[in-house]
């Protein structure tokens, strides 16, 4: 159900562009107002969500420790997977965010007759996720050329590296292929692996279809359908100079691409995609394991009812005295 719902939701978004741009000629709405609104929603939404999380306290210091803790000088501590200092935490977080350290640990359990359980290393999800996120990032960086005139050298370097093999005209970007491949992989594993299919919700399929749609329209635009690159740059430079104009003659495929991106930006802050920001706040990863060395304060700590020693002794005084245990009150 989630799969079909999400698929048709993305189709519906595309239909809206056809009706709006080709049917109703709402070029300014789709070319200027919606992109501005979407970008604003994204920024405000993401900040709002982070602030919302940030104002919730962290009552306890609960890192998941993944290596030897710091104890004696003669025992080697794992200062990254079980950091005891702020610096260690920074390195641990960097490994998590940049290299997906935890996902790298992934194993696949297998049960054979016997019974015999085995755990094989399983890096496919790690590889797919890494490919997806990094190619997405590079594609994003390449798109920055639309917002600068002249185009900064660093973007040109990224472009030339990305087109390293100099195949096709226009030159094929490696990231375009890898990106579409990674999205397809992430989608297929959701459909093919029974357990993953079982846990998948519309909220899992929808962003995949949306991002896949963005990728496909982008590739169509670059390699197959004629689009007015000069006109698009005029439009995008208009946004950043706050002097938006909508040049005529831009292919509908561009408006579809743009509207799907706008949809992603709006959807982002209210969805699981917020894991991008959330991972930085995760208390099992971003805290040092120095609990016994430094006191962690719970801001809402409150006194509780306890059973005191005096009450205990009152209950058991005679029995204690009978076996010679010392008591406070004779």
């Amino acid at each position, binding site marked *: 159900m989630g799969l079909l719902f999400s698929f048709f939701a993305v189709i519906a978004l595309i239909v809206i562009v056809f009706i709006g741009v080709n049917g109703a000629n709402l070029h300014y709405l789709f070319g200027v107002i919606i992109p501005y609104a979407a970008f604003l929603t994204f920024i405000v939404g993401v900040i709002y969500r982070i602030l919302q999380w940030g104002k919730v306290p962290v009552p306890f210091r609960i890192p998941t420790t993944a290596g030897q803790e710091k104890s004696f000088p003669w025992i080697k501590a794992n200062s990254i997977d079980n950091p005891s200092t702020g610096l260690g935490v920074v390195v641990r977080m960097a490994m998590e965010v940049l290299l997906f350290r935890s996902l790298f640990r992934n194993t696949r359990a297998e049960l054979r007759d*016997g019974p015999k359980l085995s755990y094989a290393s399983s890096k496919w*999800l790690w590889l797919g996720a890494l490919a997806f996120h990094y190619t997405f990032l590079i594609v994003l960086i390449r798109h920055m050329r639309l917002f600068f005139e002249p185009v900064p050298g660093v973007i040109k370097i990224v472009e030339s590296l990305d087109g390293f093999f100099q195949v096709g005209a226009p030159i094929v970007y490696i990231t375009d292929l890898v990106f579409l491949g990674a999205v397809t992989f992430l989608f297929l594993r959701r459909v093919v692996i029974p357990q993953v299919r079982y846990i998948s919700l519309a909220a899992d399929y929808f962003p995949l279809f949306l991002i896949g749609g963005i990728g496909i329209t982008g590739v169509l635009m670059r390699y197959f359908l004629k689009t007015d690159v000069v006109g698009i740059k005029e439009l995008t430079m208009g946004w950043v100079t706050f002097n938006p104009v909508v040049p005529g003659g831009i292919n509908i495929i561009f408006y579809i691409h743009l509207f799907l991106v706008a949809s992603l930006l709006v959807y982002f802050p209210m969805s699981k995609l*917020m894991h991008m920001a959330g991972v930085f*706040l995760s208390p099992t990863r971003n805290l040092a394991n120095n609990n016994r060395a430094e006191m*962690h304060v719970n801001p809402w700590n409150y006194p509780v009812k306890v059973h005191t020693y005096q009450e205990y002794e009152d209950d058991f005084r005679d029995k*204690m005295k009978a076996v010679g*245990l010392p008591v406070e009150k004779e």
Partner: protein
Amino acid sequence: MANPKPEELAKIDYQPPKTGWMDTPAVLKPGIFLHGSKAKSLETVGFPNPRTWSVKDEDWKLPPNWQEIFIEGLRERVSKYRSFRLFFDICVRCGACADKCHFYIGGGDPKNMPVLRAELLRSIYRKYCTTSGKLMGKVAGARDLTTDVLKEIWYYAYQCTECRRCSLFCPYGIDTAEITILARELLNLLGLNIEWIAGPVANCWKAGNHLGLQPHTIKDSFDMFCDDLETITGIRVNPSFNRKGAEILVVVPSGDFFADPGTFTTMGELLLFHELGLDYTWSTFASEGGNFGFFTSNEMAKRLHSKIYEEAKRLKVKWIIGGECGHMWRVWHQYHNTWFGTIDFLEEPVSPITGTKFEHAKSNKTVHICEFTADLIYHGKLKLDKSRNDNLIVTYHDSCNTSRGMGFFEEPRYIINNVCKNFYEMPHQTIREQTFCCGSGSGLNASENMESRLRGGLPRANAVKHVAQKYGVNMLACICAIDRAALTTSVDYWVPGTRVTGVHELVGNALVMKGEKKRTTNLRGDPLPGMEGE
């Protein structure tokens, strides 16, 4: 109810049902769930809705406004725990956690995949705490809180041992333990505890320990230990109790006072402290290092734990040694001083034997007994005869709590390697931070849920079986009281012929004491190697 044969129980179907999980009502199966809490246990600690009820009954006798209580409780907790809120919001359901859970591996119930166990409650959060869930319902992964849904949450909250193995593999560190802990808190607002937890909590409140051992009973147990030790070593050990002015307060899990093989661990500790001439005392009041309150609510955990420091203050000791126990050390390490506040009435722990400052414990002033002993061995303060453990071929089980809530791996291994000749590790995906739960942690070590325990125990037991077949391992060492009880049952079933020991039992065996007689048996009365005929 007899359990099926191991080969029957190990036929596991991992194929999820055809119907979606929201449309597949939970069937509460005997052998999996535990008995509901008794009224008396809840009354003792003043918990809500004490009553007589049975899990098997249709009517769980909930308060009339139970939905309101649950949802208000949920809203309160997502505003007090960033972990809880964040873990609800950012899961992408990648499924990396699915086959990391011992209950899922051993049982195949899809709702035991950590991601789905969390979704059971996450769907309620979406419905009542998010706009999209309110507006879009099922499409947004939200659902109504009905009595069936509540029962489902209950059923699976008591099929998670809070071992955190899933959280190790999660790319965002989502910790199902955190979700289970708070789910159980919410259930406790409605009086939905299990008796195996509620009973020990009530006992601990009144008598100071889970088993409800009264002061004279504890004293009696120790007298018996001392008699046995005298028979074995020829030395009379004289421990003190509730003694003011001792340098160190020793607190261990009460299981070690009462049930084999934990008792042998206590005996090992008694020998060690005697040999060192340590100025220490036991307490009959602070007679429980463990904390089943932690499996109830954070408040209950705090209510039970405060006696440790209160007793240390009353007895005017300088610092505290804690025994071999898993969740006890999760609590002592990660929660202790946060709950209690500044511990300024104790001193920074220093070993009186070696002079080592335990700098990593300088704030909360509690030292793990394995740290204490490892330091002694490192400084050559103990005379050890490894050969007394030569009849044992040992492997070591890392407890979930000390592993993933502390990072305590090397000290126990260092000790074992110094007191045993034959030590072999289990496969690396099953030890250290990747260790598997015994299957019975977090208060689930009852008898009525035996099928669940054996299923959950399969991954650990299977790794033991591997080294038993490969190296002839016959002894599973561990540093947890629940392990000592639960693994005994689990390996009896899956790997018959293997036994379970605490690390300090091995220390007690190997310890060469001043003035001892020639030992012929080890602490559990088995003949020492070469003494079989005597």
